[in-house]
């Protein structure tokens, strides 16, 4: 107890009782709030980049990341009953494009585009997202090639569209000029043409990204490894005879 404070005994009892009661009621009321009522909510219309810049108040990098969290929250959870697989992809692409324009150096929008939103089991949505990734890649090939490399794998293994996949692989080879772009990425066309399954291709890609230090963020590394693990489990269960499953 400091010299500035009197003992608790100096506080009238009714104040102590009042405080305890109010605290108990507040915690009880907050805790008793049931789960938020779920409602199927789609993404709002994406804002213009100028509006986002204004809202950023000189902190575009911070707002871009917060906006990505906001986009990410539009999923089957909390107050929203609409899974991202059923989101309006035109709006989603509008949001991702606006956030990318707000902070062109951030790789978050393209990471989400290639690793989350392009992996839905809906060819139409997948194609739209791949198109967005390709267009973004053309603006800054040396930074954005990892997203297009993954898009090439999705085009080959999910969409079974070899020409599209090859066009992406060739774009990486032709348009990237930075010295830190790894050889395997420049030569992606070769392993697109090889008879390689999706799991092996993903292993090579993740191994290459990790070896070259392209994946520095711990959360991103964990997410990619988790995806790889689930692919391995899926491949293992598919290779088992039906009776053993």
């Amino acid at each position, binding site marked *: 107890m400091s*010299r*500035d404070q009197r003992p608790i005994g100096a506080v009238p009892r009714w104040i102590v009782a*009042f405080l305890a009661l*109010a605290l108990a009621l*507040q915690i009880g009321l*907050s805790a008793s709030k049931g789960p938020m009522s779920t409602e199927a909510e789609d993404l709002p219309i994406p804002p213009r980049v100028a509006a986002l810049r204004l809202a950023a108040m000189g902190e575009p990098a911070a707002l871009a990341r917060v906006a990505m969290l906001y986009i990410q929250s539009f999923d089957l959870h909390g107050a929203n009953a609409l899974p991202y697989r059923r989101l309006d992809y035109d709006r989603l692409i509008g949001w991702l494009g606006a956030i990318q324009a707000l902070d062109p150096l951030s790789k978050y929008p393209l990471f989400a585009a290639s690793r989350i939103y392009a992996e839905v089991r809906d060819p139409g949505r997948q194609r739209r997202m791949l198109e967005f990734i390709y267009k973004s890649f053309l603006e800054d090939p040396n930074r954005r090639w990892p997203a297009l490399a993954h898009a090439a794998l999705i085009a080959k293994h999910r969409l079974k569209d070899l020409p599209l996949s090859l066009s992406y692989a060739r774009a990486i080879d032709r348009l990237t000029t930075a010295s830190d772009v790894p050889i395997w990425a420049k030569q992606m066309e070769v392993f697109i043409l090889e008879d390689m399954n999706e799991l092996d291709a993903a292993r090579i890609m993740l191994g290459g990204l990790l070896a070259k230090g392209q994946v520095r963020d711990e959360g991103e590394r964990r997410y990619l490894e988790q995806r790889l693990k689930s692919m391995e489990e899926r491949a293992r269960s598919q290779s088992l005879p039906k009776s053993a499953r």
Partner: protein
Amino acid sequence: MLALAAPNATRAALTLARFVLLEARRTRLPLLILCALAAGIGLAGFLSQLALTESASLQAGVLAAFFRATGVFICAAFVVTSMVRESNDKGTELLLSLPISRAAYYVGKLVGFGACGALVAGIFSLVMLIWSPPLAVLAWFVSLSLEIWLVAAVSLFFVVTLGDVVPALAACAGVYLLGRTVAAIQSISASPLAADDDVMQKIAGWAIDAVALVLPPLDKATQTGWLVYAPPSAQEFAIVAFGLILYGALVTAAGLFDFHRRNL
């Protein structure tokens, strides 16, 4: 028991409350409110000229959000600066040397600040009647009055505890902003896209939930949507009002507790 129930204590508290209102008038708070009115109406008028549609609701929406933030800020700043000035002038010691209990002093001050907040909310609400129906404005006025009273209680608590303008205002702003955003933060923290087995994420989620238990329920209070679309249902409004009153009572109790422990 219940020192405030004594007639003398009640009279002393009401006298102190009247002095707070007098101080507000003499420190040119009404002029500040008039300036805020002019600035808000000017801003809303300018934006409504740019709108292609819904110009009236745009005006009402912008003005309501502006008035809410302005009212809260002006009252918090008034509470903090007034208390610090009185403390620096040794006014607190002088008043407590008179036959006034600490509880009467504290509650009297809070009643004065709350009445001042209700006046500010009333003036802003009268202006909102130009754009919105009376019932919606009434609900908005009551909610804004309670919100400003709650902020006054939080400001009083922090200024009594921390004793300086900047720390008290910063702490008050932190509680207020967290109170308005914590529901959205909780929603984002529950995103299933992140790894399920991430212990740190779970701990962060629990920490946010724990903090939310002791934050004011401001996310549903004083909604601009009430003015622009429809007033809240009686049940929705009652829940909002009860949450604000309860939190105000909690902070008042905490403030009284701390004030009684303070060696002056």
